[in-house]
């Protein structure tokens, strides 16, 4: 059971592996959309990024901080989804 390479290890159960991979991919796509939005807004609509939107802070900073926070939130969601189900 302790050998992580062994098929007996609960992590290596094919169902667990494919469930985790599927969850991972969905969350990955969510983040890619957020990140791509940021990239393209900066490249093609830099003026929009100047406008203050929250507590007087502009969109560029809020979106940037948002991406950092979103990474952590999605990571925590993923960890929850990967927990072994009873």
């Amino acid at each position: 059971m302790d050998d992580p390479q062994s098929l007996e290890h609960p992590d290596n159960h094919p169902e667990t592996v494919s469930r985790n991979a599927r969850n991972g991919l969905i969350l990955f796509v969510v983040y890619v959309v957020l990140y791509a939005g940021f990239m393209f807004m900066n490249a093609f609509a830099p003026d929009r990024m100047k406008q203050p939107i929250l507590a007087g802070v502009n969109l560029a900073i809020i979106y940037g901080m948002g991406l950092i926070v979103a990474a952590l939130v999605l990571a925590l969601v993923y960890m929850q989804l990967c927990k072994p189900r009873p």
Partner: protein
Amino acid sequence: MHYESNSSAIAIFAFFVAFVLGLSFWLGRKAKSAKGYYAAHGQIGWFVNGVAFAGDYLSAASFLGICGMIAFYGYDGFLYSIGYLAGWIVALFVIAEPIKRLGKFTFADALDSKFNSPGIKLAVAISTLVVSTFYLIPQMVGAGSLIQPLLGLEYKWGVLLVGITVTIIVVTAGMVSTTWVQFIKGSLLVFFCFILVIMILQRGFTTTTPMPRRNIPISSLVGAKIEHVEGKPFFRITETDGKTRYWHVEDSGRTVLPLAPIDATPHVSEAQSLTTGKDGKKLVNGVPQSMANDLHPVGSIATLPGGQTSTGPLGPASFLSTLQNSEVVTWSKETIAEKDGSTTDIYYPKVRKGAELLTPGGSPTFSGVRSNILSKKLDFISLMLALFCGTASLPHILIRYYTVKDQSAARKSTVVGIGAIGLFYVLTLYLGLGAMTSGALDPTNNNLAAPLLAKSFNGTLFAIISAIAFTTVLGTVSGLIMAGSGAVAHDLLEKYFKVPMDDHKKVLYGKCAAAVIGVIAMILGILFEKLNPTFLVGWAFNIAASANLPSLVMLLFWKRTTRQGIIAAVTVGMITSLGWILLSAQCFKDVYKIDPTRSPVPFSQPGLVTIPLGFIVLIVVSLMTAANREERQRGFAVVDE
């Protein structure tokens, strides 16, 4: 600028090095097996491993480079932070668990798990060494250029000190000691940056720092001799005290405060100059540089909203919104060639609106986003793409996945890593902006922004941050040398050249490889003293993403991937991205010092082209060689290479 030797920083750093080396020797008694050397026995707890991820990843370029970039250009440095962090999403959701499941010691193990092909080992080992070298040089250059101002020693001592310390750390206990060094460094870095940010918010902004003389009509200046610098917006004035001062002509289209009527007389602002003679002698404002006659530290608030002079303590949001409505004096540099063959760097003040500093495009690197030229916008997108894809392809990061017990620990430690690294990058925004307005910046050296910010509070904090900046280099370099050592001993010698090895020999060869790489790193560090560290790190990300990511992803998600497809993708990705970089305008300008417009490639960052190219090559070659694979599946013996 000249710096006094800082004995408390040396003491703190010496204590840290002694502690780390002691720990290494102590841990080294136990790490005798190959699994111990290459993978810390696979027994590191997920929390420690997560913080060690931060210690491994947050290099000198992250800490000093990003703070410096924010301090001098505003928001643009934060773009790097966002890209560097976002890359961890690829690591967590796509790479972490399979790499742990499939591999043993190195990332070549995982790529090769299905095929057992020496060709894959060779290609991946070479790409590991190329990427790690590109990453290693800036770390060594960083160490050397930091040691002079921070500890008061010469450049080469910085390189040697880091090189020797790290080599000893790696050779004594391999991944075990590397992990603990990275853990300690990661915790110290995040903790002290947090303290520093609290102090910045407590201090708030004030306008009382001494101001340069700005926006004065040239007619009111008196001097022995006033001359216009040909073709440049500067006047050179030889003053009666023997000093030569440069004055920068204000752009009349720009808002200058206090608002003065623009008349026929040019308005000028006082600049500072550093002249380097052909014999290497340095003059500050025309007089030999000394402690008494040196450049003034810079970076201050010109006006605060509502005409305040001091804000008092601010919150995290009000800090940003206040700055957005303020005006800041930032400093730019212009180099002119003098008639006698010496060169003069002129540093001149510019008043910028906070709102402009807090949006992308303020720095030379990213100015393209404010232009209308498509290729410049693509350059920006290409870099952001490389940062996103590069993290999960960096060999020294990937090997950390072998130090934990199982996939669930790999996952949890990545989440801890994202937390620690994300927090750090949020903090760097405040550190950079705090430094920008601290009145303590060295106009000649962007990399010193964070330590000098600490100096503006007190000497002890400066000593601590300096020592931490230096240990930052230790943690990352040890990870890089470990990755190189695994590539040489495990992938190349053992698997490709089939050198027979027992467990003991595996460790021995690994240690020898580490020592050789350590020596090479020191030599490269001394040779490349003049190279700009930030570019090299960006390039390492581009090469890593182009060479490694397509194979990693396709191996996991496309069943028809073949051995030849992987070899071709790694080789083509590595060669095209490296070639593109060597032909880029940035390289023409900064490395070969020739006209950048002669560069044949449309933008400097290759990722946007070479990452998709890696995927295409893999798919095409895999489809072409699919027949071999079917033969193998039908039971025919296919001769490998």
